[in-house]
């Protein structure tokens, strides 16, 4: 599943400032989460934001679909449980419907909106730019650098883990999953190599002049235009929240 996620990175545009994206996304999710349990109708208009972004930036539908599907099982279980715990009826416009269903639907909408917003942030903002934005929000430099390093190594190690698993399967084609005894040694190997790699990476970095203070992370200027865009969007969300209860 993960290689597919990776595939979308090159499609990313970056003409919205990462800081704006970060602030807007958080406000959006905050507003979405603040709606109450029955706020199905009120939530629906909020979908305008992610949909606009997706259409405007032509974000990868395939990626979005996958992420959404992956988030569904848990929320569905919790949502379905509401049918058992809520037996009241509510009036919904002119109909009387079971409240449980309304809660269920609201949960699904909320989940969709929150996941969409996070995915839009991810798809429009490359991690290096995000790092710059985090720095300007005074997130400690160490954590930001760590974020970059982890991100970089995830894909490398995923490849490696995949090859290890493949090598196992090539030699033990009759097994479906890896026997525990071998698993320890297999993952242990991956771990040892990871350690050695960490050492070599660090050396490779220092060989090329790395130090925490000097590591280059570009912070783009937050222009007045960007600011206005951000403030207006954020205020729109909040006003909507205050007006539509």
């Amino acid at each position, binding site marked *: 599943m993960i290689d597919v*996620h990776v595939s979308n990175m090159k499609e990313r545009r970056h003409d919205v400032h990462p800081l704006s994206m970060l602030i807007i996304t*958080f406000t959006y999710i905050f507003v979405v*989460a*603040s709606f*109450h*349990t*029955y706020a199905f109708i009120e939530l629906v208009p909020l979908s305008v934001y992610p949909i606009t972004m997706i259409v405007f930036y032509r974000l990868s539908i395939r990626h979005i679909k996958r*992420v*959404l599907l*992956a*988030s569904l099982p848990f*929320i569905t279980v919790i*949502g379905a*449980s*509401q049918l058992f*715990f*809520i037996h*009241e009826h*509510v*009036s*919904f416009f002119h109909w009387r419907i079971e409240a449980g269903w309304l809660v269920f639907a609201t949960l*699904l909408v909320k*989940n969709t909106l*929150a*996941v969409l917003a*996070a*995915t839009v*942030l*991810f798809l429009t903002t490359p991690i290096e730019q995000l790092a710059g934005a985090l720095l300007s929000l005074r997130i*400690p430099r160490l*954590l930001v650098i760590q*974020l970059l*390093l*982890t991100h*970089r*190594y995830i894909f490398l*190690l*995923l490849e*490696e*883990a995949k090859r290890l698993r493949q090598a196992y399967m090539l030699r033990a084609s009759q097994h*479906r*999953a*890896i*026997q525990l005894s071998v*698993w*320890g040694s297999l*993952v*242990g*190997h*991956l*771990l040892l190599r*990871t*350690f050695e790699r*960490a*050492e070599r*990476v660090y050396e490779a*970095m220092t060989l090329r002049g790395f130090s925490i203070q000097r590591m280059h992370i570009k912070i783009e200027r937050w222009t007045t235009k960007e600011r206005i865009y951000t403030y207006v969007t954020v205020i729109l969300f909040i006003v909507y929240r205050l*007006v*539509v*209860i």
Partner: protein
Amino acid sequence: MHMADALISPAVGIAMWGATAGVASYSLKKINMEADEKKLPLMGVLGAFVFAAQMINFAIPGTGSSGHLGGGLLLAALLGPYAAFLTLAVVLFIQALFFADGGLLAFGCNVFNLGFYTCFIAYPLYRRLIRRTNIWFASIIAAVVGLQLGAFSVVVQTLLSEKVELPFTTFALFMQPIHLAIGIVEGIATAAVISFVMKAKPELSTTTNTPTNRLIGTLGLLALLIGGIFSSIASSKPDGLEWSIFRTAGTEELHATTTLHTTLERLQQSLALLPDYNLKNGGASIGWLDIGTSVSGIVGVFIVTIALFVPYMMKKWRKET
């Protein structure tokens, strides 16, 4: 057991962000990375390792199903609790952002549930057990304790958020046993890897900085606190659904709100574009008011908890090390 944004109220989300930020900044100070810059790539690579290792499933003996490594306890064992906590936070952030696994608002909850209990309670317990018993027993117990606390914390956060109706007992009885199973698998997996590494490269598994034994004491403290918070809330509110209906049915305290609230309420009524939902049996509106009260209540409880709890823990740690 990732919390999702849809299940959480802003108040709980922000309170937990605060708690996580507190623990993280303390951990940052504690590991003093400027002095040991080498730790940085190690943390990065190990964070990635946890990710990668989750791809490799193993067969759970005698069950026909398979499981994978969660990684929190392993990270703590290899990096020490402070660096492990930070590493986990970064990994969870990437998961939340890239794979929308967990959520951004729920990020604080997730770091706390998966990182805090594992690094600062399960891990010290592990250190202590391993001296007396063998590694398998120690890591199974530690993993189970960590996950039980985490799962309980999920239950509490969900109920406090009031976004769904779940009777406490049902929810807890659902979550705890599942996480007992997950904990056992996690413990076995952790032990399998650590015992390989101990044989292959003994120097690795001993290099971590240990927090105090006495942190174990905080286990009790923490259980008490969580229990305390929860029971104080639960006692004023009989149980799940009834409690909520009781509230929304309109009690005095609900209407004993500030003038700000009443003005807002009027404003809201005049501006409302969409119909109000009315609970059939009650008729009181749920909406801004509901959120207003729960926000103030919950933020209060959390601020007090964190204000009391985090500095207390920090003082303890400082004394010991």
